């Protein structure tokens, strides 16, 4: 008998604000958070707009004793840590991270809790590194990229070269730090992983958490992803990859999925953590789950593009295969899906493959299934995407309401992704799916519980 897995807590850190209520209100209102970037002056970049998470202090989401550690957290980690805390509160759990100082008991023992948090490459802070590198330029020495390796290597401690970087410099940027900080804060001692597959990181993590609970290696999992692309390297790399739409300096700028005139996506930043629990355990503690994680599927695209875009395959075969696997795993069929949350990010190659995959699986019925594309309101946070997409679908199921759909243009015919206000709707099963830069595809089927 397969152990069933349900979502009992949602924590999100997005431009709408902290927590699932802020997310839901923003989605219902269909309010776009895309604006000119403010974290740094973007005028030198071709793409200057995006979605920035609302200001928050990670210190407010960790126990007092852990506040010092915030110093070694990159923005991506802060988003994950905040989302984790919000998810714990939403699920009504007590963990080591939320125990009152007077003590008490945690809801679950540490070894029965898992933690899978997807992440992206975290770029070192440009200011700090630039300053250190600039101090190691030596006249007449070509060095590496203009930096003297001699000067870089043997500067006095705390003063110059590598020795001016903080001792824990590297730790701040390891992708596994998202999960590691969360395991430490909340005391999860079960399996923990860090999946790094660009946009697919979040859904692949959700799939793996579900499997870990299914095979009885845990009763609960912190599952999700976080990433910020609102930094120099994040913005630059995505632009160089051909993912971003050029924007005028003063806008307007928008993400227009499946629009023949779309020229790319816009950056974003987001974190989302879902609390997954084995159904019986959730029942035992008397919580009403949002929905069941009924099915999961994954597949790899074998790219047919030229060497410099080796991952590109406009056919969408890989995504279609992942979706079919998820439907099969959920014991359902395409005609029972009431809502699709695809990546829908406005990158022409990716959109084309995605639309093709959806047509393959859903046929003519696709024209009647609403497509909720979050990048139109929250930008593209890459790894951060999956958990927030899943959160949106779970909330839609909980409220039996379709969030507003935002679109500044016109999606290709046969795709229900155009602008529409929010509306009540029966949503029994929802599909969340994405391809990725790199060709990994993942799909999750969520199902309302009776």
């Amino acid at each position, binding site marked *: 008998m397969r152990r069933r897995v349900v979502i009992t807590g949602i924590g999100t850190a997005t431009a709408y604000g902290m927590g699932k209520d802020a997310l839901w209100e923003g989605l219902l209102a269909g309010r776009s958070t895309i604006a000119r970037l403010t974290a*740094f*002056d*973007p005028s*030198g970049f071709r793409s200057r707009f995006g979605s920035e998470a609302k200001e928050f202090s990670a210190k407010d989401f960790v126990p007092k004793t852990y506040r010092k550690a915030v110093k070694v957290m990159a923005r991506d980690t802060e988003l994950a840590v905040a989302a984790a805390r919000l998810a714990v509160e939403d699920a009504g759990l007590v963990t080591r991270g939320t125990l009152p100082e007077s003590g008490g008991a945690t809801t679950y023992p540490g070894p029965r809790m898992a933690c899978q948090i997807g*992440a992206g*490459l975290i770029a*070192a802070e*440009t200011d700090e590194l*630039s300053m250190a*590198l*600039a101090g190691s*330029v030596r006249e007449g020495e070509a060095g*590496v*990229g*203009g*930096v003297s*390796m*001699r000067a*870089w*290597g*043997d500067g006095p401690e705390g003063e110059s070269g*590598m020795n001016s*970087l*903080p*001792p*824990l410099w*590297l*730790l701040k940027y*390891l992708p*596994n*730090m998202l*999960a*590691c900080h969360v*395991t*430490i804060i*909340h005391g999860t001692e*079960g*399996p*923990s*992983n*860090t999946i*790094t*597959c660009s946009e697919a990181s979040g859904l*692949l993590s959700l799939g793996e958490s579900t*499997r870990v609970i299914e095979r009885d290696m845990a009763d609960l999992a912190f599952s999700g992803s976080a990433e910020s692309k609102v930094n120099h390297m994040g913005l*630059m790399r995505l632009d*160089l*990859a*051909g993912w971003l739409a050029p924007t005028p300096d003063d806008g307007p700028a928008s993400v227009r999925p499946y629009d023949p005139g779309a020229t790319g996506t816009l950056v974003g930043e987001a974190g989302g953590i879902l609390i997954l629990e084995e159904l019986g355990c959730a029942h035992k503690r008397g919580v009403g789950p949002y929905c069941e994680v009924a099915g999961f599927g*994954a*597949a*790899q695209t*074998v*790219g047919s593009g030229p*060497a*410099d875009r*080796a991952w590109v395959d406009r056919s969408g075969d890989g995504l279609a*295969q992942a979706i079919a696997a998820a439907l099969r795993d959920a014991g359902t069929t395409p005609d029972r899906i009431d809502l699709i949350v695809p990546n829908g990010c406005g990158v022409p190659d990716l959109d084309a493959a995605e639309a093709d995959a959806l047509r393959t699986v859903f046929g003519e019925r696709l024209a009647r299934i609403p497509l909720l594309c979050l990048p139109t309101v929250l930008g593209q946070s890459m790894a951060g995407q999956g958990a927030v997409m899943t959160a949106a679908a779970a909330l839609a199921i909980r409220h039996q309401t379709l969030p507003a759909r935002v679109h500044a243009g016109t999606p290709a015919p046969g795709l229900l992704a155009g602008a529409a206000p929010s509306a009540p709707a029966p949503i029994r099963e929802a599909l969340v799916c994405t391809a990725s830069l*790199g060709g*990994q595809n993942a799909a999750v089927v969520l199902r309302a519980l009776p």
Partner: protein
Amino acid sequence: MSRRVVITGQGWVTPLGHDVDAVWSRLLAGDSAVGPVTRFDARAFSTNFAAEVRDFDLARALADTTPHGHAALNTRFALAAAARAWRSAGLACEPGPGFRALPDKAVDPRRMGLYLGSGEGPVDTDAYFRANLAGWKAADRSLDAGAWAEAAYRLMDPRREVEQEPNLCLTHLARAFGCRGPAFNCMTACAASTQAIGEAVEIIRRGDADAMLAGGAHTMIHPLGMTGFIRLTAMSGDRDDPTTAARPFDQTRDGFVMGEGAGVVILEDLAHAKARGAGVLAEVVGYGSSADAFRITDIQPDGRGAQAAMLHCLRQAGINPREPGPDGRPGVHYISAHGTGTKENDRIETIAVKGVFGPLAPKVPFSSVKSMLGHLIQAAGAVELITCVQAIRTGFVPPTMNLRSPDPDCDLDHVPNQARDLRAQGGVGVCLSNSFGFGGQNNTLCIRKFEG
């Protein structure tokens, strides 16, 4: 009844060479791969040595390298390792010199997945440093984002930047080998490729794939990679004699030595392997995973996390670590240690092994090949699992080299300085391979000699 998973192919690229049997002989001979860093001028670095991969040319491993022309070095290592694994698994490839994988009639590409613990591609240091220098305004000690971006657009090669994404290794392997099944990449630091193999095994067991290419590839032998670990004081600073700098379990150990490379295994559902007549190298019988949940910079002092990973793994394998087998030997015949050579890791890993095996702990050979290969970071686990397969195949276990002054806190059987021939004792039937990641993610695999 859960499906049985076997290893039918293996390949690696290591600092001691690239052929499985040749490198194995060198490991048994106690060779060291450590020497001065040659990839860039590291003379002024407090750790100026590493175990570099030498004589590596992807064109010798693959007939057609054009789709991989811009691939990062770690991806190139992975492609070469996977090509060897593919060939050793008897999967279809073009005859003649130069390797090209062919669709294998016995394998459905949609049922063949990938799970790697590949690291990020090394930074294109030249362009990155120059952009940073262009952006830094010394006069007002601040970064000019516009100047930075102008230089970055001018200097950075889009084709090289994208290859730094850690999932691009999957992309290239999929392209070279036609894998269309479930695909994941994980980055749990030093535990990544062990975890990748473990999760790949679970995917096959559940029936979500029939075969998986699994393993890892990594290099951090570049200025920023070395910088990061030097700042953490995690690496040995023994500049006088690099070949003995990696001293796991030795009282004088002062950190790990950086290595690089790749290890890839072909995992298969046993029935699938049998149906296509594949040879079996070993069976994977256990996988355990845990988190320390302790501190970012320290390991649980009682080794609880490491113990949990080993215990889950042994339970899955059906082995009671405190009970001798019918032959009087412990149920595990060899443990490939995480054994980095840092003060804390080796001491606490020893405590953990004692906690798991109790009075039998001193009877289990427990050595670290990092003393010879260095620490391959994310690729370490996969390469070390292959050494376990070799131990099973040959009946020898590799030594911990440079173990001259035993540490009273590391008092197990570390197979000091000399490989051991266990054939007279009945060979090596069961191995554990430990990998513990920085930050507290722990993973252990258990493999067993395949018996029908």
